[in-house]
């Protein structure tokens, strides 16, 4: 038995290779990359089909005598959205909120990422990393409820204020509370997007700027910040789109009067059973979000999301 001279593992692998060759002939090999793309393409395709259906139902109004969508197309839902001040104010609140949250997140995430990347202390780095990842194990809803406990009228903060004789202050159920919750929720995302961009800036760059006469602040402004731009754009885009489409924070910390677009969509789908209106609002959200991302791309480039292509 000459074959027994080979390891069993080799023979198994040879057999497998022969099998693969039989069902996947060599001249098909060029198709392999496309085949591996297939799952992603299918996933996007499904989303597109979903969007087409949403587009279809957005063009049908609800008949309240049968609770069925109209069998003809109409712009009625869109008309209602654009003429009703309610939707304008919700849209404006979501947009303004996501921009403020993005700005604050970048401001807070930057020093955090910087310290995490640059600290010589392995212990501090570990601590910062754990503090970053721990919140990921606690869902958004749970975290929002945590804030209810901490910031409530009988919460920890008000208890402490009570100790110095301050009467309970309503910290929850207003716009700042929603923004606060969103910022706290989004900072880890921003740090995660920023840290690799900051790691890519060699420490030597800062030493060089120093030796060339720039103090800490001017080094930051003229060297670190411009070089971190891809990370800032990437982090900004992620936080912007996630905040714009957020549901839980406005729902839980807003006390019912601080709805974002997602809350308005939920109401239409699940509270007033008006899928057409919900679909129209959904498409508007998709449109506004895409527009915003487009504006950021045009102004600042695609950042880390360009996979290095536009960095020349």
């Amino acid at each position, binding site marked *: 038995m000459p074959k027994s001279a080979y390891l069993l593992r080799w023979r198994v692998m040879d057999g497998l290779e022969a099998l693969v060759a039989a069902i996947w002939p060599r001249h098909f090999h060029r198709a392999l990359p496309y085949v591996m793309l297939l799952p992603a393409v299918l996933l996007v395709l499904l989303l597109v089909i979903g969007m087409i259906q949403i587009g279809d139902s957005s063009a049908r109004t609800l008949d309240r005598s*049968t*609770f069925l969508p109209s069998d003809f197309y109409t712009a009625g839902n869109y008309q209602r959205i654009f003429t009703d*001040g*309610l939707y304008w104010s919700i849209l404006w609140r979501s947009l303004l909120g996501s921009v403020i949250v993005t700005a604050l997140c970048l401001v807070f995430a930057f020093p955090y990422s910087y310290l995490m990347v640059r600290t010589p202390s392995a212990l501090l780095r570990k601590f910062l990393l754990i503090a970053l990842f721990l919140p990921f194990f606690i869902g958004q809803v749970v975290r929002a409820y945590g804030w209810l406990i901490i910031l409530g009228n009988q919460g920890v903060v008000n208890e402490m204020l009570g100790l110095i004789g301050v009467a*309970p202050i309503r910290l929850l159920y207003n716009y700042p509370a929603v923004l606060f919750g969103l910022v706290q929720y989004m900072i880890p995302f921003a740090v995660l997007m920023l840290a690799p961009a900051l790691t890519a800036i060699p420490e030597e760059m800062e030493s060089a700027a120093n030796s060339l006469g720039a103090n800490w602040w001017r080094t930051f402004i003229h060297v670190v910040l411009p070089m971190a731009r891809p990370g800032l754009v990437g982090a900004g885009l992620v936080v912007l789109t996630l905040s714009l489409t957020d549901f839980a924070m406005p729902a839980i910390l807003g006390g*019912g009067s601080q709805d974002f677009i997602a809350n308005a969509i939920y109401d239409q789908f699940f509270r*007033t059973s008006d899928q057409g209106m919900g679909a129209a609002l959904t498409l508007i959200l998709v449109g506004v979000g895409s527009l915003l991302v487009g504006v950021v791309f045009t102004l600042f480039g695609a950042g880390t999301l360009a996979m290095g292509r536009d960095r020349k």
Partner: protein
Amino acid sequence: MTNKTSILALSRRRFLGGAAALGGLVATGWTGKAFAQEPEKPAEIIVRAWGGSWVASLQAGVSDPFTAATGIAVRHDLTEDNEIQPKVWAAVAQGRVPPIHINWDTTTNATKSALRGITEDLSDLPNLANVTELAKPVGLEGYPIVNTYGYVYVLAYRPSAFPDGPPTSLQVLLDPKFKGRIALYNDGIGFHFPAQVAGGGKLEDIPGNMEPAWEFIRKVKEQQPLLGEDPDFTNWFQNGEIDLAVTISTNAREAMKNGIDLAWTVPEEGSKFETDGLWIPKGLPENELYWAKQYINFALTKEAQQVWLDGLGLPGVVPGLTPPEGLAGDPSYPTEPEDFKHLIRVPTAIQVEHESEWFSAFKSIMQG
């Protein structure tokens, strides 16, 4: 339509096969005895329910005894009523078996499904012979839904905040003392009609002219009310966030059970009275439909209602129930005609048609 004929076919077959057995079932209402000609039992039936004390009461009063009598397990699906609705609608529209056997639903929501024509007719339930008028849905043909109890959107308050006696009028909501300490449902449900009266309008003008209601709600908005859903009210009372709320008495009662000092009243403007019910979506296999109907039929027995509604603290649809402790004569527990004098009932059909306008008008004010 094909479903309907199949039920008839089933009934006929059952009749031909075992008229005596059927007769027995009708006569005794519910006996729990097994009959030879009964359709095959499913392993379980799925009942959508609200969580917390709501599902606990249903389980104690209806589901557990039903399982004990039939051997069919009951699974409670705690998906929100509003969220299960589009799922059921989609399933029926696509000819799939719906995800639940029975939906425990608000009468208004259930009516939307009935208008859509996706509910099974329940007129042949034997126990409907013994129920009060409250069980019959108004403005719908037959029994696409069966109402199982009523409830009142009371004005709940914290007695310690009212040293001079309980509030008597909704105008108390405008008292600067309670700025930021009042709560309403986030779509204003239960508040639109009393607000119409509080704003100086007439109930007869609903839905034609509701401007007085919106005027009053605009004033309430200045008071920065918290807006939420059932569990929120209980939380807010417990955490000392609010002193006043227009909510279903059950939520206030839940907070009371947790040791919070609370009381409620029907203000002089009146309170909205509503009902909840049970219904069965179309598209179930024949045998499962049969047992789902048996479940609802059982829910209409005096024994089941007594336990279930003790838990909820709400008035049922079977005469002769003993009120839960402390609720006899309570404004949230109306039983006699004069109890209903201060309660506002608006026909379901009008509510179903205009509800989303009212919600959106309320939201426009509150989100502005």
